[in-house]
């Protein structure tokens, strides 16, 4: 069968030039190792911060000790004044500064509301936000401790009497699926599959474009019995299988090996992964048909492929972007894939909520049909000029 022959020919080509496996298996293997180990800590712990203790009494030291006991932050230095502390902050050594006013203890005992000041470096948004959150929390704890002392003095004892005063409205926080606010859970699913779409796009364009560039279209078509359809399917099928397997391995690594939340079905998610790979193959084919010169197409595809990380809307939500960006995002399969991931893995939503995202990804498979005429012209023209 001619399809088998085309597949065999492609397989042989893949084995001869290292670029094929380097830009698929090699890249993805590296990225799995990189991303899975890079965020292994989950939530950054022991963030380095600094302290300015202008009081230096047992109260201020106890408070500092309480801050240091938090697993999330770590006091690495005590500074005599703000300018020295700021110097280290500008060097990037510490992400936050806590300053206790002079006479902290005396003011506290005399009911004069001493001052505690935080300086948080939000140029590093993640480290800054996390240390800010932790410092606010400790501040509440410390205030609660002192309030308790004051209420004790007024004769109010026992938790059932104290809590309604200390915290009249208690907050019960539920973080859906990602209980520990694990940073990897936010990022990895899109980062890893974002790199996957780069590979799929680039190799789809490369494996077709290189035939046009090196004028081997003749032998390619001959082996497919001059059927462009067989030639294209036979050429792309090995990559569909290769990238689907790589993607499914990724799912297994994330949801089984790393135990990332999966409240739906791993099989449905993997089905979506296969469709995702095919959607990007369709886009790659579309691009090389429109711009058959591989050198221009790879630049264009690189531009489109990198924008996927923005338009997936996983770090900065799409609603926060200008309206045009919201429309643009629909043109990226990764956007729909991300929504399916949120439904399946995080929210454990019934499948019918994901159907229209699946349909949106499937819609990309129409693209090759739209350019089939043009592609045939390109192919036969190259073939003729070669003959």
């Amino acid at each position, binding site marked *: 069968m001619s399809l088998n022959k085309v597949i065999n020919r492609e397989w042989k080509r893949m084995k001869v030039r290292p670029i094929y496996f380097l*830009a698929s298996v090699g890249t993805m293997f*590296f*990225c799995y190792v990189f991303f899975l180990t890079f965020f292994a800590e989950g939530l*950054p*712990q*022991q963030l380095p911060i600094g302290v300015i203790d202008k009081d230096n009494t047992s109260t201020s030291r106890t408070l500092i000790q309480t801050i240091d006991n938090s697993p999330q932050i770590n006091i690495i230095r005590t500074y005599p004044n703000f300018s020295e502390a700021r110097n280290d*902050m500008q060097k*990037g050594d510490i992400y936050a500064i806590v300053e206790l006013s002079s006479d*902290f203890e005396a003011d*506290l005992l005399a009911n004069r*509301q001493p*001052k*505690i*000041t*935080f300086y948080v470096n939000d*140029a*590093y948004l*993640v480290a*800054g*936000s996390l240390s*800010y*959150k932790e410092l*606010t929390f400790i501040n509440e704890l410390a*205030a609660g401790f*002192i*309030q308790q002392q*004051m*209420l004790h003095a007024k004769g109010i004892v026992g938790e059932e009497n104290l809590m*309604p*005063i200390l*915290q*009249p*409205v*208690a*907050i*019960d*926080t*539920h*973080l*859906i699926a990602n209980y520990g606010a694990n940073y990897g*859970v*936010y990022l990895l699913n899109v*980062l890893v599959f974002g790199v996957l779409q780069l590979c799929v796009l*680039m190799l789809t364009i*490369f494996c077709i*474009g290189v035939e046009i560039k090196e004028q081997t279209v003749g032998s390619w078509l001959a082996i497919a019995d001059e059927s462009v359809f067989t030639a294209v399917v036979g050429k792309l099928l090995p990559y569909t299988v290769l990238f689907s397997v790589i993607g499914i391995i990724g799912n297994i690594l994330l949801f089984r090996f790393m135990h990332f939340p999966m409240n739906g079905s791993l099989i449905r998610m993997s089905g979506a992964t296969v469709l995702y790979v095919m959607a990007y193959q369709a886009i790659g084919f579309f691009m090389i048909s429109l711009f058959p010169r591989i*050198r221009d197409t*790879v*630049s264009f595809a690189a531009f489109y492929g*990198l924008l996927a990380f923005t338009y997936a*809307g*996983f*770090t*900065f939500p799409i609603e*926060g*972007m200008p309206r045009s960006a919201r429309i643009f995002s629909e043109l990226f399969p990764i956007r729909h894939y991300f929504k399916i991931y*949120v*439904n399946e893995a*995080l929210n454990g*939503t019934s499948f019918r909520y994901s159907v229209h995202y699946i349909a949106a990804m499937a819609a990309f498979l129409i693209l090759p049909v739209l350019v089939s005429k043009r592609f045939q012209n390109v192919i036969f023209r190259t073939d003729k000029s070669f003959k």
Partner: protein
Amino acid sequence: MQKTNYNFWKSFRESCKRVWKAMKEELQMILNDWGFIIVFFGATLFYPLLYPMIYRNETIRNMPVAIVDESQTFLSRDLTRRIDASPDLEVVASFPNLEEAAKAFRRQNVHGVIYIEKDYEKKINRNEQAFVSIYCDMSSFLYYRAMMLGANFAILDAGNDIKLQRLNQLGVTGKTAEIVASPFEHEANILYNKPMGFASFLLPAILILIIHQTLFFGLTIVNGSACEEGRLYNDIFAHLNGLTYEKLLGKVLFYFLFYITVVCYILLIIPKIFNLPHIGKSIDVILFMIPFLLAAIFFSLTIASFIKNRETGLVVFLFSTIVLLFLSGFSWPMSNISRFWRTFGMLFPTTYGIQGYIKINSMSADLSQVKFEYIALWIQVIVYSLTAVVFRRFNYERYAKTNKSASNVIVEM
């Protein structure tokens, strides 16, 4: 003695002329090829405009949330109003029970649900502790942050009023009550990113990455096309005539001077146009960029010597853009990157370039405060200039050997 001196100056002048000629050749080559114009002019011009526009809102405001108010009392409605008033959240729907709210959540119409229990007001009136549950959409860090900031502050705020009332009932009034409610004054200062914004945090890193990656991919394409289009033979010819260094110097100088203008546009003008952080001294930014650009050029030339085809660089290394971004420690903090990946990151100019630029530009550090990055970049300049030279010479000699006939043709010409 005088004569040798004269000869030295003469040959120096001629060298300079050849370097100048190599620079002009490089410029001509770029201007004659649309592919290069797109990378070196198009991408450097367009990308820095696109990203700040996409992220110009800095953060999400009025994130849609749903309320399940089983209490339906004056106090519960007061709490709902407080939540709605927060700049982070907007109450867009109200449901009779959690199941209905969950449906809206699953359709991703709301990114959070706030549940007020049935006995909310009753408990408050009976001096008991009341409960409010919040459910956060965890699909994005910013959803989580908006919910935590918005809901927590609104609920704490409502709680504080109740706290004061209860203290009043206990006979603690006036200033004393206030002091018991908050025993110390607490002031939080957000430095170097006033809006706590996403653009102010991400874009400085992205801008450096744009400079590096256009240079890197541009130079791999330059080398790949030189191999494909026979321009390599000119280089080999020059090499056989002992002009390797002059050619290379011309090339490096050209890209250096070209990218200094690119740096002025991307790092000095763009942040002002889009109101991104720019509290550093311009002169410090430029001084810091000198070793960064040189390191990036020599690093790119080193890798490019392995690239024999025009498109290979992009196909194989496109993913590096994402990896380099995270290795720089702009997001996941540098202090928490494992020793292995931190060491690995030392190989790349972007790691120091991004860190140094953030510190100078966003945190107004001066050069002495980025001494570490500055020295590291100069070390990279030394190492990568050596490797660039070694690989180039090796390539030329190998080509000259394997393609003797071809190089002979050129020598004869």
